[in-house]
């Protein structure tokens, strides 16, 4: 196992990073976003820490998602103007990783589809991997912040356009993020509560 030792450029706090895919961490002490750029550790210059709330998932949570063990390594929060959604980065026990999107407490497990290209211009439907999707929402996302370890650089304040949709049978989701060229496409499955089991589900409302 490769372990990287990094020092927060802002506050000097040490940090051990075990996941080789991690590109960004949020310092637990000062809340700064720290990322690797050309083999150097740099601070994003923005406070990125998110307050932790009464959510089902939390950073460091372990559990089982559809039979696969995972640990929630980190989270990125985005604003779409009228609300938030969170993207939890999961590291599976088999070494793979994925994203669990939580939007208004609905959960969707997503995987990036390499090579998928959405239609150009405005579209209401798209097909990915032979599955047709209908666009449900489009807008502009702004990264609010993050926590933990992430396999990408999510600098607070970064904005990009997005398109979200579902398959008509309601089982699958699609997300197109215009944060790069070509856009990044994710497909996933909508989850029901029973699909996810946490080792520590926490307590009910006080």
């Amino acid at each position, binding site marked *: 196992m490769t372990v990287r030792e990094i020092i927060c450029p802002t506050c000097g706090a040490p940090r*051990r990073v*075990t*996941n080789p895919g991690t590109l960004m961490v949020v310092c637990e002490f000062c809340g700064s976003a720290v990322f690797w750029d050309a083999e150097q550790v740099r601070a994003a210059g923005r406070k990125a820490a*998110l*307050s*932790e*709330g*009464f*959510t*089902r998932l*939390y*950073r*460091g*949570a*372990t559990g089982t998602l559809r039979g696969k*063990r995972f*640990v*929630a*390594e980190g989270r990125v*929060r985005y604003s779409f103007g*009228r*609300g*938030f959604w*969170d993207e939890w980065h999961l*590291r599976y*026990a088999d070494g793979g990783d994925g994203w669990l999107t939580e939007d*208004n*407490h*609905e*959960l969707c497990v997503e995987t990036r589809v390499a090579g998928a290209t959405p239609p150009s211009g405005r579209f209401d439907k798209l097909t990915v991997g032979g599955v047709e999707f*209908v666009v*449900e*929402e489009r807008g502009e996302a702004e990264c*609010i*912040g993050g926590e*933990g*370890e992430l396999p990408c650089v999510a600098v607070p304040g970064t904005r990009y356009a997005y398109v979200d949709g*579902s*398959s*008509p*049978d*309601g*089982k699958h*989701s699609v997300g197109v993020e215009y944060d790069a060229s070509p856009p990044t496409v994710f497909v996933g499955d*909508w989850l029901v*509560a029973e699909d996810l089991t946490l080792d*520590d*589900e*926490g*307590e*009910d*409302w*006080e």
Partner: protein
Amino acid sequence: MTAPDPPAARARPRLEPRVVTCPGCGANLKQRDEATRFVVCAYCSAHLELSDVEAKVLGGAGKPPRRLDYEVGDFFVWVGARYVVAARLVFVDAEDHGNDGSGSATVEYMLFSPRRGTLYLDHDDGEWLLSHPVHVMPRCDDPFALDEGARVETHDGERWVLDDACTSRLVYVDGALPWIARVGDRVDFATFRSVHDRSIGYEVERDSGETEFNRFRVVSRDELARAEQTKRGAPPRASDEPVDSSGAAGADDDPVMAQIVGARTTARWLRWLAGMSAVFVLLNLGLAARASGRGSVAFDRTFQPGERPVPAAVPAPQSATTAAPPSPARPDARADAGRAVDAVGPPGPVDPAEGVTPEPPEPPEPPEPPEPPEPEEVPIQGGVERLTDSFDIAAAGLVRIDLSADQLRDAWASVDLALVQEDDAVTHIVDGDLAYYDDDDFPSSGSKTDTLYLWIDDPGPHHLLVRTMGGRGESETPGDLPAPLRVKVVQAVASPGPFLLVAALIAALTVVLFLIGGASERRAARLASDEEEEPESEP
């Protein structure tokens, strides 16, 4: 053996509610759902937009336009998960410009469970609807353009009929929401009902260009009452809390609440058991009634008062009281009948023909003075005996003898019966009593009927030896029958006795269960009352 936790794993942090200071009044507002983006100040009703670092006032709103059934902070338990009323929204028809919500309106409660997500409880047109978001889409381009009654199929194969399509306007909101809601927001709704079951529905909602889908079901008031709890996690109201496999939510860490829930659960189970016991009582009573009605009549005859014994068609008068000569054809029957009557009446004279070996004559004794003559025997004293015609009992089994005297009034009657099998003289002896009085002291007391049961092992021809007696008023001197007496022999019957016995035992058990259940319920009510008297820890 489990795999060690990965390096990034950690224990769930203790979560404290996020405190937001209202810019309008300075009140500290606790927000437990960290996804909250919009909150209405509980003190000054200011509408606040929450960013991650600050709260911004969007505007203000007054009191709810109508009395709402539930408060923000009330709890519900659905399918084992505890949901809090996080927000309340009141919608009116967008075209009803003068309606501020005090008229016809739809009240929507947003229910949130950190474990299960969001549910919506709507009170619309007298119905309570519980809905949850789905992503299944209809097979039509624009569900909002359909006419009422139009049929639509969704992509999961369900078929629906359009119940209502309208545009609603938000006129009131409070609580906390994960999105920003503004009074005056307009939302398009298309509400469908299942073509098979109107209690199930599907809804398409369009808000600011975003389309969402929900499925809902009608919730009865009883179910709602069972699911609801008092505000801020206090003990449940008097209504029952539903029982599920996970137990009552919230009771695990509250010993008093656990006791209340336990007592209520016990009471509920005892009431259920008592109810089931009552059902079994009724069932056994029904079986007893059914048993009583079974069988076929083998003999039916009415004996009249003053009716004298008549020669029976069957030879061999077995009466011992009348000292009838024995039947040479059936000596055993005569003997049995004699024993029968011996058992129920005064002994008859000794038959000199019954095997008495004469002894040698003794010297004559001096003549004694003659005894005074015995009084003349009056047949009516000790009863009147009658020998019935022969009748067949077809099979071994239980035989019922029904005695009835419909005209009996202020009198009593006693009946001794010997049922004699004519082939082998097996005799069964039973007796019955009837008495009925109807006067000022004893209105409608006693019974004009009696029922006797016999088990017959030997089917075949039988006859009855019937001895009757009776009296009027309070006379204890036996005399003739005071009223016609009907004797009916029913064969192949079933006895209701066992069923009645079981019914009585279960009825006693039912009473005990009810009493214990009531005590448990009272204990739960007492605990709940004590708990409610304690002040809330949170304002």
